[in-house]
């Protein structure tokens, strides 16, 4: 039951860009160095985050990435679902395939409640919570 490097690095990228206080764009090279993550890998994650509207890129000399949303509006659960895909702890049943009664029971009595627990933890957390410990009063872009 692991969060992949894609999800973990994506979150660290957002944290790094947000901690930059919004003045000048941050390059992936800087993030890669600070976060000790390979730049080509970071690039793939940055593309997904840009397409989804979490960060925007500034072209040219002095270019790089800036946050595109207020940190209080970035839910950790949404970022992870974007980068990881399906966050449920087991795959959905294959349509038409027989499931053993034990598996069906576990789905109902363990896996589905566990999925809800995980979603609750991740969806009540925003990037602002991570940066400042609370969402209150941090509506500004990338403070």
């Amino acid at each position, binding site marked *: 039951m692991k969060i992949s490097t894609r999800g973990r690095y994506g*979150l660290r990228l957002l944290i790094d860009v947000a901690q930059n206080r919004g003045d000048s764009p941050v390059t992936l090279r800087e993030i890669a160095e600070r976060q000790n993550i390979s730049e080509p890998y970071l690039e793939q994650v940055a593309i997904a985050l840009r397409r989804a509207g979490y960060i925007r890129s500034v072209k040219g000399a002095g270019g790089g990435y800036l946050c595109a949303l207020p940190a209080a509006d970035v839910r950790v659960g949404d970022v992870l679902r974007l980068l990881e895909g399906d966050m449920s702890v087991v795959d959905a049943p294959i349509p038409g395939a027989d499931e053993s009664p*034990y598996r069906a029971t576990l789905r109902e009595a363990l896996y589905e409640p566990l999925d809800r627990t995980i979603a609750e933890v991740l969806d009540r957390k925003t990037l602002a919570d*991570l940066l400042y410990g609370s969402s209150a009063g941090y509506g500004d872009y990338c403070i």
Partner: protein
Amino acid sequence: MKISTRGQYALEAALCLAANRGSRLSTREISERTGISAGYLEQLFIPLKRDGVLDGARGPRGGYLLARDPEKISAGDVLRSAEQNVAVVPCVKGEGLCAKEGDCIAQRTWVELDRAIAARIDSVSLADLARAFDARYNGAVP
């Protein structure tokens, strides 16, 4: 973020035994009921026996049963035994695996998530799961 096949199969086999109310089942019987191959079950039972989840022996006169009261065995016990490590990220135990540890903001979220998962899987016992099984199938295995 998936529970491994190994972890799922271990839970299915443990629930099969819990639902059987204390009488022994051979690997072949567990295999027929769960659809998990007997060979895989034998592999799976090595850590489960070592960690005090199951008792039993292979062979014609063998058979398996839960090693303890199913009220006292949690889903977390079974998962941790089968998967060895259920941490959501490698760094939740603070073993110094990452240079950023200590001032990593993301790590706090992972630790919180890991605790919430542990609390959930430890709060569900095999007896709870057996009751859910009975409620679902009225005691009759379909």
